[in-house]
Every structure is written in structure tokens, then in C-alpha cells.
């Protein structure tokens, strides 16, 4: 069974944010005329101190909140609601506590079957068909088949995140958004999942954005890194980090260390500037 993504739209630009402005009701502006571009297939990390708007940016890209002005195009189309081809993985609490891991992994497909291929909630051309072979394929791929009938409260944090990843990849996304996906995990689990995620991104030809406050995670996972300082965000600093990925599994790699040092200095400078 192949799980390669089907034919994709032709637009080479995955994310095009132009002059985005956003503030939560009653709050100060977090983004002010913010612009950002992401090409198809890129792997990005977004890092910055807490309160800088990292998560807000991800929710904007996910179509869960809307900018007050500016234009946000994903895959060439103007974003008005959550896009069926975008996958979102959150730090925790994303799984239904009352559903087994298998049922959780199937949730996205069940939502699609619920609406049918209406183009709003699910891709217009897709015939979902029998969901279970697809679900079981991903449970197996993520090593969850043995515990598929367990509830989230009965498994470890790492296993829960694997289930969240399975649930997302079952839907064959082309854009993957992750909000601190591995922050609550212990170091060995975190590192193995980071590596697994990079493998899966390469294998599935995904464009990915991981939001993190963790310097090592940003340096390991983002071939390009967007650094956000204190809000309101206008431009952000983009850092090239071409060696990110398998090469940096050796955490003593000089380029990796250098990137970590650089990010740390930038974070320190931002925090001191605000204090």
C-alpha cells in the first residue's frame, strides 16, 4: 500500500503572508504588517520568547483565527477556514480522552466521512472509502499497533504524541504545523520523535513548521529558522540552517553548536531588552 501524497496543486509557494495584522480582543497588537514566505517542501522552525506570538502565528496559519487585516495564502489559496490539507499537532490535550488510540487516529477521516467531500471540511475530490486500512497503516508505521485499543490516559506522553502524528498523517497533509509537539516529553523520547518526524517529512514530501521555545529543537528541526522577538512582529529574523536534520543527530556537530549559541544569544538579548 502506498501512502505517497497524491498530485498537488501547482503553486510552489506554500505559505504567503502579506501585511498580517492581528491582536486578541482587548490586547495589544501581536503582528503588525507581518510578512513571511515559505516554499513548498521547506522545513521551518519558529522560535522566540514566550508571548512573542509563535502559537498565534501557527493558529493563523491553521485558519483557526483570522488576521484583522492583510492577506494569508496557503497553497496559493486565500485562507478563510481550517484547510483540509493542513495538519496540526499540538503539545498535548489534542487527543480525545474517550477514544482509543485507533479511534483517535481515525478521527480526521471520520470527520471527512461525516461531511463527505464538500471541499470545505474535507478535500473536494477525495473518496475516503474504507478508513481502517489507512488508519492501521499509520498506527503500524508509528509503532502503535500493540496499544491501539488503549485510551490516551493509559499510554505514555510519547505514545500519545505518536498517535497525534498518526492522526494527522492519515489525512495526507501537504503542510504540517506543530506547536511545541515534544516539549512535555523526556529527552530520549523527544529526540527519537524529532528524528522520526524529520524522516516522515522527507518521506511524505511535507512542508513543515514547528513552533518551539526550545533552542536545540529549533536548531535540529528547522532548515530555516524564524526568530520572533518582542511583539508586535513586523518581519522577524530568518536564519538559514541548512545542516538541520540527520547530520545533527550528533549533537556535538560544530555547525549545530554554533546555531544553538547564536539562538541563545538572540533569546538572551530579547529577554534582557524587555526586562
Amino acid at each position, binding site marked *: 500500500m502506498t501512502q505517497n501524497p497524491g498530485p498537488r496543486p501547482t503553486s510552489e509557494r506554500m505559505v504567503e503572508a502579506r501585511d498580517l495584522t492581528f491582536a486578541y480582543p482587548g490586547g495589544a497588537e501581536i503582528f503588525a504588517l507581518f510578512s513571511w514566505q515559505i516554499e513548498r517542501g521547506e522545513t521551518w522552525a519558529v522560535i522566540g520568547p514566550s508571548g512573542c506570538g509563535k502559537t498565534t502565528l501557527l493558529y493563523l496559519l491553521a485558519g483557526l483565527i483570522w488576521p484583522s487585516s492583510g492577506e494569508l495564502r496557503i497553497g496559493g489559496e486565500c485562507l478563510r477556514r481550517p484547510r483540509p490539507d493542513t495538519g496540526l499537532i499540538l503539545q498535548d490535550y489534542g487527543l480525545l480522552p474517550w*477514544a482509543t488510540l485507533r479511534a483517535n487516529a481515525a478521527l480526521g477521516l471520520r470527520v471527512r466521512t461525516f461531511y463527505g467531500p464538500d471541499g470545505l471540511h474535507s478535500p473536494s475530490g477525495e473518496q475516503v472509502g474504507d478508513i481502517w486500512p489507512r488508519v492501521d497503516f499509520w498506527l503500524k508505521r508509528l509503532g502503535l499497533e500493540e496499544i491501539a485499543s488503549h485510551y490516551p490516559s493509559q499510554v505514555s506522553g510519547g505514545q500519545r504524541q505518536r498517535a497525534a502524528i498518526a492522526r494527522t498523517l492519515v489525512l495526507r497533509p501537504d503542510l504540517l504545523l506543530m506547536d511545541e509537539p515534544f516539549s512535555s516529553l523526556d529527552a530520549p523520547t523527544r529526540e527519537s520523535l524529532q528524528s522520526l518526524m524529520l524522516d516522515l517529512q522527507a518521506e511524505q514530501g511535507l512542508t513543515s513548521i514547528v513552533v518551539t521555545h526550545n533552542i536545540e529543537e529549533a536548531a535540529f528541526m528547522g532548515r530555516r529558522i524564524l526568530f520572533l522577538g518582542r511583539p508586535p512582529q513586523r518581519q522577524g529574523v530568518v536564519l538559514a540552517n541548512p545542516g538541520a536534520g540527520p547530520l545533527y543527530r550528533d549533537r556535538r556537530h560544530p555547525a549545530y553548536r554554533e546555531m544553538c549559541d547564536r539562538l541563545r544569544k538572540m533569546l538572551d538579548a530579547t529577554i534582557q531588552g524587555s526586562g
Partner: protein
Amino acid sequence: MRRLPVLLAALGLGGIWQIVSMIAQTAILPPPWQVLEAFVLAIPHDLGLHILASLWRVVASILLAVGTAAPLGVLLGQSRRLYRIVSPMIYLLYPVPKVVLVPVLLLFLGIGDAAKIAVIFLILFFQILVLVRDQAAALRPELLLSVRSLGAGRRALYSFIYFPATLPAILTAVKQSTGTAVAVLYVAELFATRYGLGYYIFINSTSLFDYPAMYAGILAMSLLGLGLYFGVDWLERRICPWLPSAQEENS
């Protein structure tokens, strides 16, 4: 709850009853075996019908209360604005002892089943409403966001999140209120009816002076409450297998 300790407790209580009735030697406290005999003999005759009448009233009230309070509770739980408007009203109405409304309801709804069902409905309604509202309001925003990101709109959120998330609250509310519901049923059935366990107990004690039958009615009413409690408890473990209580049971 384990079955054996419950059975032993029942036997123990029966034993105490037996001893007390032997000491008292009075017609108003017959020994348990005599009551049991009256109970078994009366079921095929009138007692069975009285049990059915009471059971129907309670079950109808439960269904009505779940059907109205649960959706309203979900609605209140997710809309802050609605919550702000409605919760002062609930705040005032919730503590009103519903049983005092029996005469009022009888005046408005007449002597049929409607008034009796309505009073139990009122008790259950507020219990379920409050518990479901809290449950729906306590849902983590991350959960809603992540399911919305999978494409779920309002309708899908109801069926994939709000309904299963509030199911335990509904069942807990029903379970907690069965005791009160049956107690109120007794009061409601004292008035303007010729069927129901309340009427049966009352008529046997005050007009017929058939004390074993009176106790048989009390026993039936207790069993009704107990049966409802355990029925809902069983249902909870059956349809909410993710709850810790259900998992303990299975392991």
C-alpha cells in the same frame, strides 16, 4: 460495587429487622419474611401495576430531562454570553426545593401523569443542566482547536466532542438524583392518583391497615431506586469505558 458485600449487607439488615420485630411484637412492624411473602404474592396482582406506573413516571422524567437539559447545558457551556444571561436564573432556581411545587403543578397540569412527571423532571433538569454545563465549559481549548483543525465544523464538534464529553456528566447527574427523584415520586403519588407506589403505600397504611403490604410497597420503592441507580451505573461502565471507574472494573 461488588455483589457479595451488597448481598451480605442486605442479609445483615434483614437480620436486624427480624430481631427488632421479634422484640417489638407489634402489627406495625411485621417480620421481613412476612413482608417478602406479601411482596411476592402481590406482584402478579396489583403491586406489579403500581410498580409499572411509578417506573414509567420516573423513566419518562429522566428521558425528558436528559433530552432537554443536556443540549441546553452544552449550549451554556460553550457560549459565555448565554451563560452570563442564564446563570443568574439557574442560580436562583436551582436551590428551590422542587417538591414544594407539587401542589402548584397539580393545579396547573391536572391530576394525570403530567404533574408527577413534571416535578421529577424539574429536579433532574437542574442537576443535569449544571453538571453538563460545567463539563462542556471545562473542555480544553486545545482539544477543540485540534479537532477543528481536522476539518470539524459545529455539527461535527457536537457529535465528536460535546456529546461524548458530556455523557459521563449526564449519567452522573441521573445517578445522583435517582434517590431524590424516587422520594419526590412518593410525595407526588400521594395526590390525585390511583396508581403508583406512593399511593399503594399510603392506602395500605392509612385505609386498609395492611402493614405487610405497606412494607411490600416500601420495599418495591427502594428496589426501584436501587435498580435505577445500578442500571445507570452499569450503563456508565458500558458506554463510557474510558472512565477510571470502568477501567478498574475491567482490569
